[in-house]
C-alpha cells in the first residue's frame, strides 16, 4: 500500500534510496544536497537499510569510493550539488568510460563565483557532454519516481551508464509537499538487486578494469560508450512502462502541457515548469492559447520527439536557468538543434532567468508568453527575465 508523506525533495530522494537499499553510499554533504545524506544516514543508523556508508574527506574521494564499490560489484550511490560536483569532476568524467551504473541525485545549485547556495542549473549543465544520463525533476514526487526509474535504467545490461537525477535546490530540495511513497514490497521487487555480468570481487573470473588506452583503442571505446547512450531512450520507455504498473503514471521523455493547439509555447526544466503550468491555466482561461513543454530526459536528448511535438507551434520561448557563456543557453541550444530538420521552422526566443536562485513569478512568465504571442522575437538574441537592466 502506498502512503502519503509530507516530504522535502531531498527527503523524497532519501525515501527512494531507502527502497532501493543500495549496498554502498558514499556522499560528502554540500548545500543543498545535505538533507539527502542526513536522512539516509538515519536509515543506516536505525538499521532500516543494509547499506554501508563510508565517511570521506571530500567529493573527489566520495566519487572515487563510489567507483571502487561499483567496480567491486556493489550497487553504489553518491549525491552532490554545485561545488561538490565540480570537485569530483575528474572522477565523474571517468565513470561513463568505466561503464559503472552509479545513480547520483544532484540538487541543482549555482556554481561559484560569486559564491551562492541557491538554485540554478549551471552545475549539471557543465556535465552534459561526458556521458552521464541526465533526468530533471519538477517536484518531490517526480524526483522520487525518477530515482527508481534511473537505477533500473543505469543497470540495464544494454546501458551500463551512470545517471544523474536532478531537482531544483531549495525550491524543490527544501520545499515540503505531499509525496506518495509507493508500496515497499512492490518498489523493492521493481528495483531488484544489481546483477552485474562481471565484477572485481568475483575472484573466480578475474579481469582488468580501467586500463590505459592510447590512440590505438581510446576512440573505439568511446564509440562503444555512445552506442550504450543510443540504447537509453528505448529502455527508458520500457522501464517507465514497468514503473507505471506501480505508480499509475506515465514516463515520457518530456511533459507536454496544453501543447496541441498552442499559439505560443514555453520550454522550461524542473520546478519552473510548475509555475509555467499555472500561468498557462490562467492565460487559457483568458482565451490565450499557450502551452508548455517540460524536458525530463535531458541526456540523451530526444531530438526527434521534441521536433514532432513542436513542429506546428508558431512561436517558442525557451527559458534557461543557466548560461553557456559565449554560446546559446543549454536548453535553447537543444531546442534549436531539434528544429533544424523542419522545413517550416517556428520562431524562437531564448530567455535566461533565475540565476543564483533569483525568483521567477507567474507574472514574469505571462509577460514572456505575451511577448511570444506578439511575435516580437529574435532567435539570435538572449533576453533576461528578472534582471535589473
Amino acid at each position, binding site marked *: 500500500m502506498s502512503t502519503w508523506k509530507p516530504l522535502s525533495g531531498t527527503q523524497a530522494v532519501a525515501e527512494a534510496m531507502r527502497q532501493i537499499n543500495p549496498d554502498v553510499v558514499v556522499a560528502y554533504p554540500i548545500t543543498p544536497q545535505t538533507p539527502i545524506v542526513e536522512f539516509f544516514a538515519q536509515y543506516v543508523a536505525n538499521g532500516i537499510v543494509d547499506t554501508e556508508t563510508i565517511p570521506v574527506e571530500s567529493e573527489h574521494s566520495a566519487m572515487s569510493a563510489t567507483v571502487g564499490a561499483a567496480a567491486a560489484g556493489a550497487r553504489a550511490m553518491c549525491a552532490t550539488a554545485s561545488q561538490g560536483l565540480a570537485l569530483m569532476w575528474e572522477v565523474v568524467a571517468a565513470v561513463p568510460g*568505466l561503464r559503472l551504473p552509479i545513480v547520483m541525485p544532484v540538487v541543482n545549485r549555482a556554481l561559484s563565483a560569486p559564491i551562492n547556495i541557491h538554485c540554478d542549473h549551471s552545475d549539471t549543465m557543465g556535465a552534459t557532454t561526458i556521458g552521464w544520463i541526465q533526468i530533471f525533476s519538477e517536484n518531490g514526487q517526480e524526483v522520487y519516481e525518477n530515482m527508481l526509474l534511473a537505477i533500473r535504467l543505469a543497470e540495464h545490461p544494454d546501458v551500463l551508464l551512470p545517471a544523474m537525477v536532478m531537482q531544483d535546490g531549495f525550491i524543490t530540495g527544501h520545499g515540503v509537499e505531499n509525496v506518495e511513497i509507493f508500496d515497499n514490497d512492490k518498489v523493492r521487487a521493481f528495483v531488484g538487486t544489481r546483477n552485474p555480468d562481471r565484477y572485481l570481487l568475483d575472484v573466480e573470473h*578475474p579481469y*582488468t*578494469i*580501467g586500463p590505459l588506452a592510447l590512440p590505438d*583503442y581510446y576512440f*573505439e571505446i568511446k564509440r*562503444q560508450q555512445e*552506442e*550504450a547512450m543510443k540504447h537509453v531512450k528505448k529502455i527508458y520507455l520500457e522501464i517507465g512502462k514497468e514503473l507505471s504498473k506501480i505508480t499509475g503514471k506515465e514516463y515520457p521523455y518530456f511533459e507536454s502541457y496544453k501543447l496541441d493547439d498552442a499559439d505560443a509555447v514555453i520550454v522550461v526544466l524542473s520546478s519552473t515548469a510548475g509555475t509555467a503550468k499555472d500561468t498557462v491555466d490562467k492565460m487559457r482561461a483568458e482565451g490565450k492559447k499557450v502551452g508548455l513543454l517540460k524536458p525530463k530526459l535531458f541526456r540523451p536528448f530526444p531530438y526527434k520527439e521534441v521536433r514532432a511535438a513542436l513542429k506546428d507551434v508558431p512561436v517558442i520561448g525557451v527559458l534557461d536557468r543557466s548560461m553557456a557563456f559565449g554560446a546559446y543557453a543549454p536548453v535553447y541550444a537543444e531546442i534549436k538543434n531539434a528544429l533544424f530538420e523542419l522545413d517550416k521552422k517556428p520562431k524562437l526566443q531564448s530567455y535566461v532567468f533565475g540565476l543564483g536562485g533569483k525568483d521567477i513569478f507567474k507574472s514574469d512568465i505571462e509577460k514572456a508568453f505575451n511577448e511570444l504571442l506578439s511575435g516580437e522575437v529574435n532567435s539570435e538574441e538572449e533576453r533576461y527575465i528578472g534582471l535589473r537592466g
Partner: protein
Amino acid sequence: MKKKRWKELMHGADLPPASSLEYKTGSWRTLRPIWDPDKCTHCMFCVAYCPDMAISIVKSEKGVKGFNGRIYKGTVRLETDLDFCKGCGICAHECPTHAIEMVREEEATSSK
C-alpha cells in the same frame, strides 16, 4: 596482432586479467637496482615496497647464502625483473642492510 573493432571489445575497456604482463615497462628505467645477495637478509621489505611487483620470490628448503654468510631458508627473493623495474629506487631506500645500490643504466650495462 589484429586490433579489435569497437563492436568486438568488452564494454568499458575491460580486459582479461594480468594483461600488464605483456606490457613491459623496463625501458623507462634510468637507474638500475644492483642487488648484492651477500648483504641480503631476505626480509622481504623490497618485495613488499616494490610498486611494480618486479621482485619475485620463491620457497627454498635448501636455503640461500646471504648476510654474514648465513643460510636463509624459507621464502627468499630472486633477482629484480628488469622487464618491469622502472628504477624508482624505493627498494634501495627501504633496504635495512643496504644490499641494493642504484646505478645509472649506462654504467650498469657497460660494466657487464
